[in-house]
């Protein structure tokens, strides 16, 4: 299995938090929602989702609970906790500022430096 780049790993956590901020989901649902929002432009290695979910749960940003799926099956649903919401906000801010800086750098023209 090829490892995801580090940047993406951090990003995956953020994307999961974002997906859950829109409402509780099971693991497969998280995957679907991210793909849906990205209009299928983002491919997520399915197996890598669960270690990330467990990590977030361990850190207390999301909480898991067993429930019933749409087709009447037992599934584990995750929801964002208060701490998770704060974390999402912080990560989004950080991402935006980072994106702005990098965008700025990338837009630099020869005469400006």
């Amino acid at each position, binding site marked *: 299995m090829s490892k995801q780049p580090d940047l993406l790993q951090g990003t995956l956590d953020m994307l999961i938090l974002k997906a859950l901020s829109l409402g509780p989901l099971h*693991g497969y649902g998280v995957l679907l929602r991210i793909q849906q929002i990205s209009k299928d432009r983002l491919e997520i290695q*399915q197996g890598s989702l*669960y270690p990330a979910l467990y990590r977030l749960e*361990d850190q207390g940003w999301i909480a898991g609970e067993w429930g019933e799926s749409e087709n009447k099956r037992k*599934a584990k649903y995750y929801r964002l906790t208060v701490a998770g919401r704060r974390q999402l906000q912080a990560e989004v801010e950080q991402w935006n500022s980072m994106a702005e800086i990098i965008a700025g750098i990338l837009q630099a023209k020869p005469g400006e430096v």
Partner: protein
Amino acid sequence: MKASGRLLGCLRAMLKHGRMERDMDAELRFHIEAYAEDLVRGGVPPEEAQRRARLEFGGLEQTKEECRDVRGITVVHSLLQDTRYGLRLLRKSPGFAAVAVTTLALGIGANTAIFSVVNAVMIRPLPYRDPSRLVSITEIWHKEQDRAFVPSPDYTNWSAQARSFTEIAAYDGGFEANLTGAGEPQRIPVVGVTANFFHLLGIASFHGRTFLPQEALPDSPSVVILSYDLWQHRFGLDPNILGKSITLDSESVTVVGVMPPGFRFPDQDVKPLCYVPFRLPNRVDWYAKTFTDTLVIGRLKPRATAGQAQSELADINARDFGEVSPMFVRMGRATMRVQVVNLQTKLVGNVRPALLVLLAAVGLVLLITCVNIANLQLVRTSARQQEFAVRAAVGAGRSQLITQLLTEGAILALLGEAFGWLVATGGVRLLRVFAPEDVAQLEHLSLDRSVLVFTLGATCIITLLFGMLPAIAAFRPDLYETLKHTGVRGAGARGGQRLRKLLATAELSLALVLLVGSGLLLRSFHLLSNVDPGFDLHNVLTARLQLPEADYPSPEGQWTFYEQVLERVRALPGVESAGATDVLPLNGFPRTIGIRFEGQASPPPGAAPSTPITTISPDYFRVMRIPLVAGRFFDQHDGTHNDFPTIVNQSFARRFFPHEDPIAKRVRLGAPDWPWRTIVGVVGDIKQLGVSRPSEAEIYLPYISAPGDPVIAHESSFENVIVVRSRNSPLVLASAVREQVAKLDANLPVFDIATMDQRLANSLVAPRFNAVLLGIFAAFALLLAVVGIYGVISHSASQRTHEIGIRMALGALPTHAVRLLMGEALAIIALGIGCGLAACLGLMRYLESLLFEIRPTDPLTIAAVSLVVGTVALQASYLPARRATKVDPMAALRCE
């Protein structure tokens, strides 16, 4: 905080481990099924959907593993798994498990037991306040056969002047006294101590008080302190004992205190039941008629060292040199050496070499045990090469496999330790019974915390030893090659076999070292027990009596009493003859006396040669069957005339009359104005000082002597040993002898009743103990080494079945095949014996102090042991080699 949180998480994970696994499984399964359903809904056929869902999910097990990692449970989980797996493996090969655990248990148990002795005797601090500051102080007098004592003037000088000590205290060497009064008369050991003695040790009395300084003055009232034992057994813990009087040697003394239970006198030769003040002259008077020998202990000041203290005391002595009387000068005052040593070191004394040898031996046994198990593990590991390869192929990391092997090692070690602890408990019990009595502090032998730490440490090392070795050998990371081999013979790693041979060689050398050591001790013990004592010690009963000076003031009164006792004893049924002596053979410490020869210039006082004297009843020689060499024995008339007859032994005759007949020569014993004595007989030498000590020149006097004989009058110790030769088992006479004595004097204790055989056996307890223990260890080591070489050769044989099959198919005879395998065995055996012999040369000198009349490089022992090791090892390797040739060539060829 963080670490503890992690730990908690781990613990939680461990506890909830099962549920978490199930949850994880359910969650992942749900994911895959949901995805597959979606695929089906998109038009993919169901089977294909299932397949694709799984495929796209990626490695399921790896995901799980990563999830577990996130949860922090991998470590715990894999440990549990490894443990379970290891246990299962052990259950599957119960033979291996039994052998491994049993040998380990014996190895660890024996180590623990011996270490507990070392701990009790050498490591655990003495039971006194701040014991590391306590020292023993003595003077070694070279001209007095290295006798160690401090004349009281030196002690007095030191206590006044020495600055290295917070204080020093003295005691006499201990003596015995008759305790009479309530109950049966009893002979008890007593010691005189200075008033500050207990304070120096930091031990308070249990009841009452310790001695006051004025109680050591000559005319102060007599007082005594009881030991707890005496208080308990003789006085029934009487709470009103203080202030009461007891009778010691017919003198009334007042009890002022009781020492606490378990208080141990800081000298293993002195085991007092009560204490009296040690009365020393206050003034330094080197010209006093008599001076007192003292034994001295001290407490060093916080920064002082024993070395400093020693030179300070030597300086004090040097300043005083001019004051010393000519007698002390001639006794070798100038060559006398002050010695200050740590008290514990002193107490361990002569037991130390034996203990260290035993500890080293038992350590070697444990080492062999480990090597052996490592060897067995290696065989198993190489057989499991394929298993490892498969596991590695499905993703087990190298570190995981090593962890697993280590876990398996740890399981064995822990099981071994658990059973070893049982072995040790039994071993300690045995040691307590059989260990020689003079081992200090052995009564405090126990398995305490430091012993536990020692065993756990040993177990850790063992685990690493036989966990790591196979792990190192197992990993030839050539997965493909190993997997390719599917045949049963495919597992042999050449490197593993080389390592196994090396281990077997090491085992043989270690076993050889132990066997040579125990062989030397056994031979030495054999020599010791076959020493001719110079008399017939079978069927002789001995019993000691001490007449109180108050009741028997004159020598005439004493010997009259003894003659009466002997007369009654001779009349007892079964008694052949009976006599008396004041010094028993074998364990005697005879008094010595200066001697002058008629016709020779009289040497100055103190410079005369001195010889031990023994006073005996006239028929003592006949009772003991000591042979007469020349002249005559004493007879009943010797006391009636005035020529003072003496009898000398052969050593005496050889030393002082090398070219003459000593009979009728005259010698003078003691002071220059004491009478001349005529030598009337020469008797054979006997082992007076013990079987391991050479005989010295000795003089015998009859205890019935002319009235006023100054030697008898001055040297009488009032103590005698009754020796009774019986027609059959002498011990049954014990109570009869006691009865006869009681009829003559009801207040006289008869003590220390034993046969001469028993006394001989007692003097051999220590060497026998060492020899037997080392012998057991060595036998065990040899057994392990034999198992080791047997394993190597049978493995080698099974590896080469194919080769042998081919050779035999091509016409080789079975003997050729045997020769092939035995060549391997011979190389191992020769190298093992060679290395062992080299090690012996280096190590055996540490045994020297335990050996009697045999050199540590005794060629006979070494040759015999090498022969035994060689033969046994060859035999052990011949069996599997022989079996290898029994194989049918066709079967051997087919098995590939």
